[in-house]
């Protein structure tokens, strides 16, 4: 039985989780063998699910010969059956000061938390173990990979307890999880984008499925038309004036940077999804997992 506080922590996400029922998040490639799951394994096993016959080659395991076929045709064939395995999924959420934007109301942090919970829900439905790591200025706060569904409550409670602020050690967390088979990073890539991309590149090179969910606020994509002195929440002393004259340049430079981040992710064969805080979380999760399904197909 769930604790009442734990149950209450999921209430804001109830509608989202409902809307994601039946959604699957297949692996883009055959996963390495391990715990049984829903993803096709790179091992050819002995499951009852027949796939194909293959001619015997010296060295093959004789126990996998189809003796009946041998008796009928007097030829040596191996009966090939797919094995299925679970895919351990690690989700990293950035809790730096820049994620606390807009300061009031629904912001990037809330958006990132909802996306993380949605992806966790889908992955657990597939039988995958999901672990959450939150990169904060004070260090990493994590929940180890679990396959039980009640991990959703723990994650929701973790998100509630986390305070955003400062410069989060996102890169260090990504580097630590570089060996994870599936790595999802939900961040705004501000502050240390180059180092974070470098860590993701390492993870991709290690064979991980890399998903980068780039969260931007609507106010970042379309800043207020009035003139104001903008300051960086991670470095308050860094200030620049936004005016009519500088607005066009800002939009251009911001778009160019987003394209460059997307290009970097695509170059490392990763999955890049840009989402703004105005986009429904359900749609974001669908784009992430269905995009992966499309790639797998």
């Amino acid at each position, binding site marked *: 039985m769930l604790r009442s506080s734990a149950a209450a922590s999921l209430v804001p996400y109830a509608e989202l989780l409902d809307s994601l029922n039946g959604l699957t998040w297949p692996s883009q490639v055959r996963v390495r063998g391990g715990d049984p799951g829903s993803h096709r394994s790179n091992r050819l096993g002995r499951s009852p699910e027949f796939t194909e016959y293959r001619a015997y080659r010296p060295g093959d395991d004789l126990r996998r010969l189809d003796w009946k076929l041998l008796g009928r045709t007097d030829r040596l064939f191996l009966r090939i059956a797919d094995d299925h395995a679970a895919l351990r999924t690690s989700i990293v959420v950035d809790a730096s000061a820049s994620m606390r934007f807009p300061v009031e109301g629904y912001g990037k942090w809330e958006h990132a938390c909802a996306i993380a919970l949605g992806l966790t829900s889908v992955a657990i439905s597939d039988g995958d173990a999901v672990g959450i790591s939150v990169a904060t200025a004070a260090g990493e706060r994590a929940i180890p990979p679990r396959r039980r569904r009640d991990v959703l409550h723990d994650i929701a409670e973790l998100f509630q307890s986390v305070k955003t602020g400062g410069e989060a050690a996102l890169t260090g967390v990504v580097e630590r999880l570089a060996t994870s088979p599936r790595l999802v990073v939900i961040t705004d890539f501000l502050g240390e984008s180059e180092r974070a991309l470098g860590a993701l590149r390492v993870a991709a090179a290690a064979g991980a499925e890399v998903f980068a969910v780039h969260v*931007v606020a609507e106010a970042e994509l379309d800043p207020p038309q009035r003139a104001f002195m903008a300051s960086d929440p991670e470095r308050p002393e860094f200030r620049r004036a936004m005016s009519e004259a500088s607005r066009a340049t800002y939009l251009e430079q911001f778009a160019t940077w987003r394209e460059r981040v997307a290009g970097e992710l695509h170059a490392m064969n990763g999955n890049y999804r840009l989402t703004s805080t105005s986009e429904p979380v359900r749609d974001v999760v669908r784009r992430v997992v269905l995009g992966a399904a499309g790639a797998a197909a």
Partner: protein
Amino acid sequence: MNFVAPLWLAAAGLVGAGVVIAHLFRSTVPPQDVLPTVSFIPESTPLTVMRSRRVSDWLMLVLRLTVVALLGLALAGAHLERRAPSNIVLVDASRAVGSMPEVVDSALNAEFPGGKFVVFDSAARIATADEVRALTRSNVRGSLSAALVVAHRLVGHARDMDRTQLVIVSPTVREEVDSAVDPLIDLWTGTLKTVRVAAARPPAAGSWEIRTSGDDPIAAALAGAPNRRVGGGVHVVRSAATAADSQWAAAGGALVVWPTNGGGLTRRAVADSQGGIATGRDVVVAQFAREFQPGPGTALVRWADGEPAATERMLGSGCVRDVAIPVDDAGDVALRESFRGIARSLLSPCGDVVNFEPVTVPSPQWQHFGETAPLRTVPRAPVDTGKLPLLLALVAALVLGVEQLLRRRVGAVT
């Protein structure tokens, strides 16, 4: 209030006008807001400038104008000028004065409203008319230079120093005039007048005797000195002084210890030779071996390098004079008139050598004694502005600090 460099006041006025004009333009920083993607905004000037007919922020304007004005005053060298007294009367009260009432009368007649009295003997002090009336003659040597220094301090660097008349009421004898008198008088840009009063009669030479053995050059040098008799008031001994000598000196005698071989004197660390000896009156140019030095006391005779060759120190009611001047038996130095003069000066009673000889003209300035000297063109000394400019600068810095504090508190650049 006067200024050393008034041009700075004009500069401060221009800057002040600029400050006022600047306050007619209100420039503000736009409101602040957080934007994580601020680094994509190009660098630009954050100020928005608006022109206004009304002065903005009166308090800041006043503070800034105050800073500018204070700095202008400080750089202009503002200083408060002192007014020099109309005349300064130097009143001699030393032992050289023959009649003190004469001096007092002359001084009171010389002083007029706005004037000052400076009474001097060996030291000088400012006095009132009543104090001058009550003056009595002291028994110490007078120092005209000390009085002139006080007079210079009285006028300071006043711009109207030219109008200050300096009156010297004194017998102006030689013992009162030292080498500082000439330059001090040369520095005086006002008129100068002297009222010469009668000098005191020099004390009669006391009786003396010398204790020596054989042919002694000092005995020869003193041969012509009057009043030589046994039991005199001055004893010249050519050997180390005995306890009896000291006892005699303490009883009121003047003991001149002039040992032939330096006995009783302190031997110098390094012996050398000197090319002469001198008093205020006589100079002897000759080679003297300098092996000993006299004891501490008032220098009566000095070597050519300025070190004392003979000193006098008080002992009880009398005095002891140490003389470290060796005299060669074979030479004629002791017979020179200058050396004889020095030797005879040591026969004076205790309390310095008295010399009431009227001053002969030591400098062109003294040629005008007895009459009013004309104004002379003397380069003016640099104006001493005192500490007022520094004080003004410090106050300006303080006001500037307040202005900075207020500006930060307001949080806007205006």
